[in-house]
Every structure is written in C-alpha cells, then in structure tokens.
C-alpha cells in the first residue's frame, strides 16, 4: 500500500530504499561560524552562505554515495526542538540541561499561546530539492516531542499543548506539501515514553498529517517500543523509522509475529558510536530485517541523525548502509525499481 502511494506521488524507488534520518554533521567551519554569529561577530548573510555551502556538500555527497531518498542535513538547525520553538510564537528560550554524557541542550519553555508564524522549513527544503533529481524529505519535529522536550508553563496540561502544536504544525506540513515535498518525515522520538498518552499523541499526529498528499514517515528512537507495540498498528503514517542496531534489533521478533502493515525503516548503523561498522555486520542486520519484515517493506538507514559524528564518520556510516542495501538487493535479484 505504501509503495502504491509512492508511485501515485510519482516516486519510483529500488527495493530496500536507503535514506538517512535527518541531521548530518556540520563542517568545522560552519560550527565556528555559528558560534561567531551567536556572539554577533558574523553577519547572518555570511552564515547563510556557509549553511548553503554545507547543504550543497551533503546533497552531492548523498548522491555520490547512491542514497535514494535524501535529506538537506539540517545545516541551519541546532537542536530539533529548539529550532521550531525559535520559529513559532509561544516559546521562550530555556537554560541548558544534560541529555547524556557531556551533551547538553537548551530546553525551550512553552510560555504562551503557540502560533505558526509562517513557513519555517519550506524555503530551505525547496532550495535543497532544487539541487537534486532524487526525492528529498521534508523534516519536521512532531507535536508530542516538541511538547515533551519543552518545559510546560503556558498550557494547563500536556495534552492541550500537544493538540495545539499539532494544529500549528499541520500548517507547516501543508506548506511543505504545497511547495512540492512528496515525502515528509516527522520526528517523534518521545512518543513511546508514556504509554498512557500514546492514544492522544497519535491523534495529534493524525491531526497534523491527515488528508495531506504526501508519504509520511515517523522516526522514533531510543525508547521501549515493545510497550506500545500494539498501538503502533494505528499509527497514521506510511513508514515507521526505528533505531534498531543500538537495541540489538530486539523489535524484529515482534515485527515478524505481528506485522504493522506499513513500511519499516530499519536503523542498521549506530549513530552514537564513532566506529564505522563492518559491512558484514551491517549487511547481517539488514538481512535479519528483510527476513522479518519482507523486502517490499524495508528501508535502510542509520539509527538516528548523524549530527554528533564527524563528517568522515557520517560519510562512512552512510556508505556502509548503502553498500549493505546493494548487497542485499543483489542477493534478492531485484530490479532497480519496485514494480
């Protein structure tokens, strides 16, 4: 069904399409430029020039590696929640909190009425899509994750803030689709964290996407998905993108026993380790996923965004994903595109 939808949208992909989850590392010059800009020591125009340069680099690099569905690499974004909080009304900046090890992020505060001011990601998506004939995903952070990863002061409860966010993010998704985005990924890494809230969290996702003419992917990671597995069946998206290598492909048994009836993007390289895994390991992971889910349902990608890796590490990880997909495709004897 999902493949048919892609075809209707005019997208032909090979068996086991490859993609990446969203963020890619910023080159050191861009990291430095962002710090200078924060101190007012660099013009916004110069920063934009460097961001565009880095975007071109990553689009070309993904094409060169043979990746099927591209991303713009989010060279202009910092944190995935902070970026949307900065560009919508109703948020104010928060302080630094730790996420793991020595990693910290600025957790925004939902302080008032949330409002979409106008397109946030559309112009960046359109300019990156112009660089390539391959499909390039529109990338949004989902309503539940934005709510959950902000401090909540301006709404009485979690559900009302999430519902409001869904309505506002729908306007962004609609703007992306109107601009020509055929595949839109919504990142909801927080969605598994409170099983008792999954019902209305999915309602919010539905409200943000229903009726929009695009193939929707939901990315989630580092959670306990077996706890909400049965709920995932009513997930209102075409493709569920899961981190799997970090969790030893634990979910494959469930996916085999109780198929979800949608495409599954399988994370086959660890986004948080510096070492690039051997082809044999990555290929083995992909083969296990294909056996469990079926080749017509599987996409291959890294576990998560690669922004915490170096440029060289990220390229290495994407390369091994692509090579693993090619090897598995070869053994399946597949033609270049799905018929």
């Amino acid at each position, binding site marked *: 069904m999902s493949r048919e939808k892609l075809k209707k949208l005019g997208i032909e992909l090979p068996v086991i399409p490859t993609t990446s989850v969203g963020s890619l590392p910023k080159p050191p010059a861009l990291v430095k430029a962002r710090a200078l800009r924060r101190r007012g020591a660099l013009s916004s125009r110069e920063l934009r020039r460097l961001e565009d340069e880095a975007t071109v680099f990553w689009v070309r690099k993904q094409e060169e590696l043979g990746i099927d569905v591209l991303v713009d690499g989010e060279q202009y974004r910092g944190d995935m929640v902070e970026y949307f909080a900065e560009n919508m009304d109703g948020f104010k900046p928060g302080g630094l909190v730790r996420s793991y090890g020595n990693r910290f992020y600025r957790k925004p505060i939902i302080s008032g009425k949330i409002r979409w001011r106008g397109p946030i990601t559309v112009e960046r998506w359109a300019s990156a899509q112009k660089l390539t004939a391959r499909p390039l995903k529109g990338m949004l952070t989902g309503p539940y994750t934005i709510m959950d990863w902000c*401090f909540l002061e301006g709404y009485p409860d979690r559900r009302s803030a999430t519902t409001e966010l869904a309505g506002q993010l729908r306007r962004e998704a609609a703007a992306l689709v109107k601009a020509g985005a055929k595949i839109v990924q919504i990142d909801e890494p927080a969605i598994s964290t409170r099983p008792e809230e999954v019902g209305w969290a999915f309602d919010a996702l539905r409200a943000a996407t229903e009726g929009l003419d695009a193939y929707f992917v939901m990315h989630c990671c580092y959670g306990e998905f077996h706890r909400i597995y049965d709920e995932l069946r009513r997930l209102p998206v075409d493709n569920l993108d899961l981190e799997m290598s970090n969790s030893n492909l634990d979910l494959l048994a469930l996916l085999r026993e109780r198929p979800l009836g949608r495409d599954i993007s399988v994370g086959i390289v660890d986004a948080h380790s510096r070492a690039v895994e051997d082809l044999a390991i990555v290929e083995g992971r992909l083969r296990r996923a294909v056996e469990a889910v079926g080749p017509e349902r599987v996409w291959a990608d890294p576990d998560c965004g690669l922004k915490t890796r170096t440029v060289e590490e990220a390229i290495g990880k994407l390369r091994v994903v692509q090579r693993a997909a090619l090897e598995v495709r070869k053994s399946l004897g597949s033609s270049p595109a799905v018929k």
Partner: protein
Amino acid sequence: MKLLIANNSGYPRIGDAPEEQELRRATDAWEDKRKSDGELEDARDAVARKVIAEQLEAGVDLPTDGQVRWHDPVSHLLRRSRGVELGGLIRLYDTNFYYRRPLVKGAVRHREPVLLEEFRFAQEASAKPVKVALTGPYTLAALSLDRHYGSRRGLAMRLAAFVAAEVEALAEAGCGLIQLDEPEILRPSADWDIVAEATSAAACRRGSAKIALAASWGDAAPLYEKMQKLDVDILGLDLTYSPGLPERLKAGSDKLLALGVVDGRNTRLEDPRRTADAVGRILARYKKPFAILMPSCSLEFVPRSHARRKLALLGSVRARLA
C-alpha cells in the same frame, strides 16, 4: 515535628553562565586528550564543591554531591563491576535523558565501593550531613539487559547484594541518609514480592544509617500500602505524579516521609502558599519526629538557575508552615 529540606539526588553540573561550564569544557578537553585524568578529576571536585555550596546557600539541610561525576544513574554504579558490560544508549523512562544500558553477561561481582570516595569528598565539603542517592536493585535489574541470570528475581537479588555492599560502606563512613531510587516499582508490571525481597536485602547492612526508598515518575497512590510494608525507614514520594496520594497520606504514615513537592522536571515555579497548604494537610496526622521536603526527582532535568530557585522555594514552604 521538624521539617528538613533535602535535595533529591542530582543537581545540574553546568549552568548557563560561561563560568558555570567548567566541567563541560574540562570533559571536552579530556575526551580530546588535552586534559589528563587528574585534571578532569580536579574539575569534578571543584564542581562538586560548588553545587554543595549552592544547595547550602539555598537552605538545604541534607545536600547531595549532585552526582556531578556520573554519566547516568545506572551505568555509574555498574561500570566497574564484574559480569557487566555497558551497552547502547537508552532513554531513562519518560525523560529526554539517556543512560548506557548494562549488559549482564556473567555473575555480577562488587569489586570495591563505587560511591564511598565521592561521599567522603562531599562530606568534607559540606557543613551539613550529606545524603547519598543511588539506584535501587529492582530498578537496576529492570534497566539492565540480562544475559546471565535468566530471571528478574535472580538478577535483582544479585544486584541487591551489590547495593548492600555500597550501603554498608557508606554507613560505616558516616553517611546517615541513603536513598534507594526505585522508579521501576511504580510500573504496572512490578513484581512486589521481588521488590520487597530485594529492598530488604539491599538495606540489611545499613547499620545506623536511615534508608529511604524514593519512587518518582509514576502514580504511587495505588501502591502506598505496599510501600509502607517495605523494609526501609523513609518513603520518598513524588507528589507531582500522584494526584491521589495526598488523600492517602492524610491517614498518617508508619514510616518517615520525604515529600517531593516541587517538580524537578519543570521550570514552572510552584506557589509557596498553595504548596505549604498541601503539605500542612498531608502532615496533619503525621506523628513522626521529622519529615523531609524535597524536589520530586533529580534536579538535573531543569537548568541550574531553576534548580537553585526550586530548592529556595522549599525554604519558603517551610517558613509558611513554621
């Protein structure tokens, strides 16, 4: 009845001001091999002293060392034990915080105290008694991947012995209050026979130290009677997640209570008057010599400036109840 103010467990190791980010910079430099192990340890010591001083300035009677040396509350305890390897990152319950999941591949052995030196250092830096919080055996077992014991009971009891060794070392060194963090017991799947057995085993070598069992991030109201039967001295309760709990608490408590009345997960500051009223109602029939007011969980989930304010707010609540 005396009201004491305690920190719950963690405290932010960095703040927003550049001078509050020494440890972040030092750790970055250590990771890039620009600082030695000794230099990193010096930076950790300096930050531990600062966070203890901040807690004392905020009016806390029972500070912690903020767990500023820890990667996370799970892997820190088990990182050097035999039989355990650290695996990939996984989200800690419903937080946006990640821990390294222990992979239990062999018999877990307690080699040497993990927290003893941290406690000694903190106690030297504090004019008031230092409390130590560590993850309890049931939660440690639930958050580990067991490839050796084959049963939750087997792993939990082995980890209870591990925790008991930590408790014993801390108690002998003079730590008077040791908190076992057990969020897992609030999960619907918790096996209370194992919870009770493991808690008792973990606490059995406490000497004269008081053992608190703290359960955050879930509704403790339906489990309150079961918690009262556990072999601990103090119950630490997260009132931000348990709307029905104050009603249960009005009936009194056989155990000392540590009430998590300010939300350690959100920046919204509680109203001191309303909070004081709520605490007053809860403690109306409480007959113990003291109770503790504390944040609902580790303060590492809020920015440092808010952590300071949350602790100071507890002082305002106490003043209203005086």
